């Protein structure tokens, strides 16, 4: 077990280094730099100011020197300052992570709550009307863009029905109810695609398990269909779902970028979008690093949980 963990950590370290190098290269080859973005149309007209700002931001240094400086700084735990706003990056990312984490948790809960019952019903009523309806629902959810669905939700629940506030952000611990109300529509918008994928996954893994020999055995023992389904089938069928939830974390962050923009939530996704538009190199670098670490940690945890609940993995 310990050996397995060590191997996993070593490969994670390699991935992190690769991510940081790739991020650095991508950001460097993008046309336009932070100085041009910061100065905008008015400021960029002044060549002297542009050069001065480039120098001040350290953009006149060769890329290898910049990368070296950055690594030297990061290993001491200092992520530097945002080129755009001058904020210290560590605290800025932490502050933005709070709304995004809340959004991701709520979206995951919504997905799981909707997808498991529908997936199970689809499998049990294989190729009958409930299955077709479930499949239609899943495919519609997968095909619906989150940002569009978000705007539709706002029109329905905020403008027409006036049940929910349209957009914005309140910290959960400052006003839990208000925060949940504000986050409900964004979480739904973020959850759509994942819910669809999850329904399909639950359906197919329940179907697979229902065809296993031990289910036939359980049935032939005279157990009721409900007991067979819930005691014997579901437990095993939900194993792949755990993996999927872990793996989807990265996709959720991606979706957060558009959903946070639509709903004006100051989260990590929007921070990433703004930073890319402004060529805020230091912030993009730090964000990539933090996101890579998060996704790696999530997938490591998923594997560990998986091996806890499925002894076959531990042995292998």
């Amino acid at each position, binding site marked *: 077990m310990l050996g397995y963990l060590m191997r996993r950590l070593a490969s994670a370290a390699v991935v992190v280094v690769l991510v940081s190098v790739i991020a650095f290269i991508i950001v460097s080859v993008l*046309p336009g730099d932070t100085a041009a973005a910061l100065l905008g149309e008015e400021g960029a007209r002044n060549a002297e100011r542009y050069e001065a700002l480039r120098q*001040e931001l350290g953009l006149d240094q060769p890329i290898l020197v910049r990368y070296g400086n950055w690594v030297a700084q990061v290993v001491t735990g200092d992520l530097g300052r945002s080129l755009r706003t001058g904020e210290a990056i560590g605290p800025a990312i932490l502050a933005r992570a709070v709304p995004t984490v809340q959004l991701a948790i709520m979206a995951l809960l919504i997905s799981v709550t909707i997808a498991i019952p529908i997936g199970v019903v689809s499998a049990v009523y294989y190729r009958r009307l409930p299955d077709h309806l479930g499949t239609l629902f899943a495919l519609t959810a997968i095909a619906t863009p989150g940002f569009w669905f978000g705007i539709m939700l706002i029109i329905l629940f905020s403008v027409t029905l006036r049940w929910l506030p349209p957009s914005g952000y309140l910290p959960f611990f400052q006003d839990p*109810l208000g925060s949940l109300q504000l986050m409900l529509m964004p979480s739904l918008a973020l959850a759509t695609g994942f819910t669809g994928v999850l329904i399909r996954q639950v359906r197919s893994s329940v179907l697979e398990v229902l065809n296993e020999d031990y289910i036939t055995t359980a049935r032939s023992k005279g157990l009721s269909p409900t007991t067979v389904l819930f005691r014997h089938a579901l437990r095993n069928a939900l194993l792949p779902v755990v993996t999927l939830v872990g793996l989807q974390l990265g996709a959720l962050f991606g979706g957060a970028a558009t959903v946070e923009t639509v709903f*004006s939530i100051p989260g990590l996704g929007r921070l990433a979008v703004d930073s890319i*538009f402004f060529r805020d190199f230091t912030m993009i670098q730090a964000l990539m690093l933090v996101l890579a670490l998060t996704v790696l940690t999530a997938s490591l945890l998923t594997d560990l949980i998986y091996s806890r609940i499925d002894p076959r993995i531990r042995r292998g």
Partner: protein
Amino acid sequence: MKISRRQLLVGTAASAVLAQTGLPAFAANSVSRGGTIVLAELLAIDSLDPHLANARTRIMSLMFDSLFSYRLKPGTTDEFELGYELATGFEETSETTARMTLRQGVKFHDGSDLTAEVVKWNLERARDHEKSAVQTSVSELVNVTVVDDHTLDLEFKSPQPLFRLTMTAANATNVYIVSKQAVESMGDEAFAHKPVGSGPYAVENWLVDDRVELVAFSGHWESGLDGKPLPYADRFTIRQMPDQSVSALELRAGNVHIMDPLEQDLDSLEAAGIQIYAQPGRDTGQPSFYISSKEDASTPFAHDVRLRQALQHAVDREAMAAALTFGRGKPHYYWGWYPGVPGYDESLPRYEYNPEKARQLLADAGYADGVSLTVKVINRPKDLQPLEIMQAMLGEVGITLNIETMDRTPWVESGRTGNFEALSHGNTALVDPLFRRETMTGSDANWAGYSNPKVDALWAEASRTGDTAARAEIYKNIQRILYEDAYHFIAFRAPKMLAMAPGIGGIDSDYNLRYAWLAS
């Protein structure tokens, strides 16, 4: 504290009722006090220091005072006039010197006093600070001498007939006056997050990329129409909202009071009882672009005026205006000049729609078989759609318009380095054409490298001419030459709109938001 959904939505419901009563625009004749006004701002704010912030946002005039004011003339709907804000007098003592007196008894939010020394320090900071974003406004200022506590002598390198106009909120590079004491005690970085001015609102809190929360400053010097000190509202909140469709929905739900609407949302907003206000003197022209005038430019359009004339004649401006502005725009022929701008005159020569003539000009230039031009543009529907329609119109006469779309930052980079055949570049009415520097030889703004000695001489003459009517005549001559050279293209104009909740009053232009009130 526990808040029920009902309580949370009371505000929303109240504004819904207001919206349904369909109050006519600006019905709120009598001033209202109190409440929180919420503005949706598209622009990401990088700093609240008005001298150093790169994002030139209109919210600065809420927190800071200018030396002079530029407001709607009482009793008119489209005439603006220059007035005094922190200055109380300005007298030109020679061609290049002036004496300025300052308002007495003005306090900053930190309790410090406005003095001549503070204003001198502000003007010098704007000119000398290495990160100053407003340098252009004071680059000609050589000396500032403090005469007494409230009097200054200014000395310039060259005549500055527009100095007062430059020092108003209507100018993007205005030098707002900040508290010297606060900058010196806090340092630039802390000041950028919680700056101190003397304006009607003081900064309470800035959550980066989310909101700026302002509260009324009780010690503000200026009085409102009801004789009591400004501001009218208790609080002013700026929410940074990157999606204008969502801002429009927030406006309809009553959570936002002022926003910049998308053209396609105007009709539905109006139907929902929202005030749609066309800001006078703030027209925007589209599609606006200029062709590279550099000697080494690769496109034949740079070198043969007949090609440029063909392009100008090939566009049906009336059809474009009708198709793209939802009936709110007009065909437009004068690049850089708009109704209300000195020198605007519809009797000046212009390129009418004449595809036959365009084909003839192309043939004369030796391109009867066709010619192509590539225009670089930021990938935004507002900028792109007009070019796409124009592409079809130019195709009719044999000009292939290639449209190269890009992000804003690489677009700035292309412009700055002059790396383009033609560049699409926003064109909005400015208070005075002298603020527009795209056609002056050697100007940082002249990305196309346009250079005509006659135009330069006329600009120089205009910048020495204090009388507006005389300046307008000079501007007409500049337009005649720009017409002949035909490098600059424009096809239609539409006013810059503000969408406002029914209870909002007092706004004449978005740089004067400080005078807004909210009827409860």
